[in-house]
């Protein structure tokens, strides 16, 4: 019970910080949940993120599982609301304002300036995941193969995720 407020605080903050999508907050989420609050280990964090990759839809729905581990069903509900409500309300309000701002010159500045920040943060998210998940020659080979297959041959990411799970089961299980 006592963890509900920290959960709401952490994921509410992450919601507002998630500029450029959910993966931008991965390193911060890992730092806050693993190092600061010790709700789970780095391995569990990556395992839960990996579970999220196996589910359809937007890719950060797994935050509910973190909340569930910390404080049961109530923890899951609080975490989901804290992570999705603030950004959603902001988007709803901004969506209605945005068209009024069509002539506002800073609108383009915001877009052009935030795009490279978001890309860099996504790269940082990949590094944060790799630091925990790439811990052997086999896992390094899987990660590298996925990068090449997507960039070079545009292989469907869902197939790569499933295939890597199968390879992991055979080689690492």
């Amino acid at each position, binding site marked *: 019970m006592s963890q509900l407020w920290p959960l709401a605080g952490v994921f509410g903050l992450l919601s507002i910080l998630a*500029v450029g*999508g*959910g993966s931008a907050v991965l390193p911060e989420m890992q730092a806050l949940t693993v190092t600061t609050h010790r709700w789970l280990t780095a391995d569990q964090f*990556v*395992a839960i993120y*990996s*579970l999220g*990759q*196996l*589910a*359809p*839809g937007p890719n*950060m*729905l797994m935050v509910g*599982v973190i909340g569930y581990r910390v404080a049961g069903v109530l923890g899951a509900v609080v975490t989901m609301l804290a992570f*999705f409500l603030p*950004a*959603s309300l902001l*988007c*709803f309000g*901004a*969506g209605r304002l*945005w*068209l009024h701002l*069509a002539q506002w*010159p800073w609108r383009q*500045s915001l877009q*052009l*300036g*935030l795009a*490279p*920040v*978001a*890309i*860099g*943060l*996504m*790269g*940082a998210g*990949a*590094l944060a*995941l*790799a630091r*925990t*998940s*790439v811990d052997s020659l086999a896992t390094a080979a899987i*990660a590298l*193969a*996925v990068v090449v297959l997507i*960039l070079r041959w545009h292989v469907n*990411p*869902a197939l*790569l*995720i499933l295939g890597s*799970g*199968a390879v992991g*089961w*055979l080689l*690492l*299980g």
Partner: protein
Amino acid sequence: MSDAVSPRPPIPAESAPAPPGMGTLFLTFLVLGGTTFGGGVVAYLREVLVTRRRWIDDEEFLTALEISQALPGLNAVNMAILVGDRLRGVRGAVAAGLGITLPGTAVVFVLGLLYASHGETPAVAGVLAGVGAAAAGLLAAVAVQLGRRQLTQLPDAIIVAIACVAVGGFRVSLVVILLTLAPIAVWWYRPRA
């Protein structure tokens, strides 16, 4: 302009079909939420909303995408909220937002419970180790794909590198980056008279 931001435009744009019913809207986003995998959500959204259903045109889609990417939050959820609001106002935004998140939430919870009870078995640990490594590769590849333009222009590439190395390498807090690097980057692209 003003009719485009009111919840239900009194006069729809010419040749635009009538806005969908709430049930259709919810179901469409529920199916989207249940059938898109691995970050392809945005392309799939365009296919369904613009090409197949013709609920919005390409320009409206790109505007919604622009807003989704400039604001915090998951792009797919933000898109659902914006398109839902555009079509059916507040209730449409809620229906679309819930629709796109519910299927994945249900699946991830079932997987989470299975992980809690079977996570220690070597087979499950092996599968998750493989998926975890693939997830890191996938995210890196998506960053490169989305960042093709940013990575080839020097000022942008520098901003990308600073954000990536500071947060990913030196574990600088995201708050610090958003309070320093982000304003500098926006200032770099400030409007010039």
